[in-house]
């Protein structure tokens, strides 16, 4: 059968339904666990995940070859100097003791002291977060602002030239490596046009506008590939929803295609979109390493990168732990927002 482009997708859903046994159709029970239990369970698995993650992180990172002390002291250092530094850094204690110290410290908000920088890790991370977090939020905002309208537009014009153009663009967006894109952005906008500085971060004390300005190119470099993904998700989620029976019901009430999409489609399509936004946020927080490198931003990613090469293990461990924590928390929050969007998850009892 040749593919037929359908305006209201319910026909194919319809045709599909035919093959579903009549008597199982009526039984699609929500069967969703009750809210309280749901979140208690989520919370418990969140805690277990974090503890397991901390083991994995600590013991995997500790097997990395290389010694922070000899790295700091360079090639002319004498062995006794290195030993002195190792004991000063607390590196001569056993692994398990160090793990316990690290983990209990973290519970109290103390992430330890960086080996190389000799400053509290918590402080360093907090400083870096002032760059990474706004950057992630900025990029996410950009990507959402671009992607959602594009996805909605494409879904509304399914199969028409507008859809094909948007989808073509997203295919390209997905395929472009973001570091390469960043290189090109710098070449065009910083070096040739000189609209933006080539990188660096002026700091928030220079004023929010100046700070945002200096984050713009990196945010764009991060946002566009993400936007491409998000737009695709938005479109396909909407198309799935547009194929649902209740859209047909809405149309039969007298809503136009567009009204049905806005009033009934969007909110239902939001769940997959929220999931992706959550994933992207965590990705942006951690995944900006290369972009931070290209734009020499003092962000978290670069901190880990430097810490890994300096074998500043405690920093690596703490940042990775923080990132894992962030991902798990974001997922948890996304789950919570599901309940806002979808009453089926709210439950009564």
């Amino acid at each position, binding site marked *: *059968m040749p*593919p037929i482009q359908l305006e209201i997708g319910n026909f*194919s859903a319809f045709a*599909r339904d*035919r*093959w579903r046994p009549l008597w199982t159709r009526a039984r699609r029970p929500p069967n969703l666990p009750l809210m309280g239990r749901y979140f208690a369970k989520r919370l418990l*698995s969140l805690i*277990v*995940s974090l503890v*397991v*993650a901390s083991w*994995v992180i600590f013991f*995997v*990172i500790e*097997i*990395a*070859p*290389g010694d922070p002390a000899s790295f700091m002291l360079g090639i002319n250092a004498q062995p006794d100097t290195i030993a002195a530094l190792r004991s000063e850094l607390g590196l001569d204690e056993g692994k398990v003791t160090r793990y316990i110290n690290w983990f209990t410290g973290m519970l109290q908000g103390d992430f330890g002291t960086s080996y190389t920088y000799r400053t509290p890790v918590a402080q360093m991370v907090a400083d870096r977060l002032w760059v990474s977090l706004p950057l992630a939020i900025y990029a996410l905002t950009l990507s959402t602002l671009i992607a959602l309208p594009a996805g909605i537009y494409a879904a509304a014009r399914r199969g028409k030239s507008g859809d094909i153009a948007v989808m073509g663009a997203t*295919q*390209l967006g*997905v*395929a*472009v*490596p973001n*570091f*390469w894109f960043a*290189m*090109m952005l710098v*070449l065009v906008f910083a*070096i040739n046009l000189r609209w933006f500085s080539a990188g660096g971060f002026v700091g928030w004390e220079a004023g929010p506008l100046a700070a945002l300005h200096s984050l713009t190119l990196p945010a764009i470099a991060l946002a566009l590939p993400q936007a491409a993904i998000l737009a695709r998700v938005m479109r396909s989620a909407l198309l799935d929803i547009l194929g649902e029976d209740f859209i047909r019901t809405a149309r039969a009430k007298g809503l136009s295609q567009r009204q049905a999409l806005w009033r009934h489609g969007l909110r239902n399509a939001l769940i997959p979109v929220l999931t992706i936004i959550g994933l992207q946020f*965590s*990705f942006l*927080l*951690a*995944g900006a*390493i*290369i972009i931070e*490198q290209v734009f020499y931003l003092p962000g978290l*990613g670069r901190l*880990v*990168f430097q810490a*890994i*090469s300096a074998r500043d293990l405690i920093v*690596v461990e703490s*940042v*990775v732990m923080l*990132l*894992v924590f962030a*991902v*798990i928390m974001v*997922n948890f929050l996304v789950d919570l927002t599901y309940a806002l969007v979808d009453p089926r998850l709210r439950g009564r009892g």
Partner: protein
Amino acid sequence: MTRSLFLGGVLSALVLLAALLSFIWTPYDHTALNIPAKLQAPNAEHWLGTDHFGRDILSMIMVGARTSIAVALVAVGIGMGLGVPLGLAAAAKRGSWLDEGIMRANDLVFAFPSLVIAILITAILGAGAINAIIAIGIFNIPVFARVTRGAALSLWQREFILAARVAGKGAARISAEHILPNVANLLIVQGTIQFSLGILAEAGLSYVGLGAQPPVPSWGRMLADAQTMVSLAPHMALVPGCAIILTVLGLNLMGDGLRDWLDPKLQGGRA
């Protein structure tokens, strides 16, 4: 959408062809340095120009395709090889501690920042193509486990599975005989997508110097080499960049096309 399947297929085939051809022929020896001839723009002798060591970029792109394909392919292989059985097992024992354990472990892997871990892995094991494969492969496992489990769960609800159970077949046998062939389409589609992501990941790792090591050419490393020379010799950045984009584009289009073509939702009932 046979159009995207066609376009994607052609692009992917081209890359594959270039990689295969490079085993028997490249315009120049891709390892031969010719420093006096460095940084030449594309010309009659060197169709895509030369790099900072005077190597022929076309030859490097061809051999680099080999690296990209090999790394991504093996990484997908690892992901499938481990992820699919895990997903099948989880679905077969739905709701059991095994299922719960596998899914939680999946979530955990997902929660780790992949790039940071990839950098760590290469820091621990040393940079190199093999370790890049491991780093990329690890993150493919949960993807395949999840996709397989999701599809398998709905298959386990189908009556033909019930029929097989009535015939007394065990979970392992049913998974192999009935579930696997029916999730194959989905896995092929996901495989193409992971494959393209693998190519991007390899490029990223090589770009930060953690992928394939010289003298094995790699697109990502070519980009890394090119980065300071963009303004001198833009072709050094444009050529590998376009190679990556076209390959990933091709694979994605192919994946999309395949998905439509093999639409799992339309299976089963339709001729």
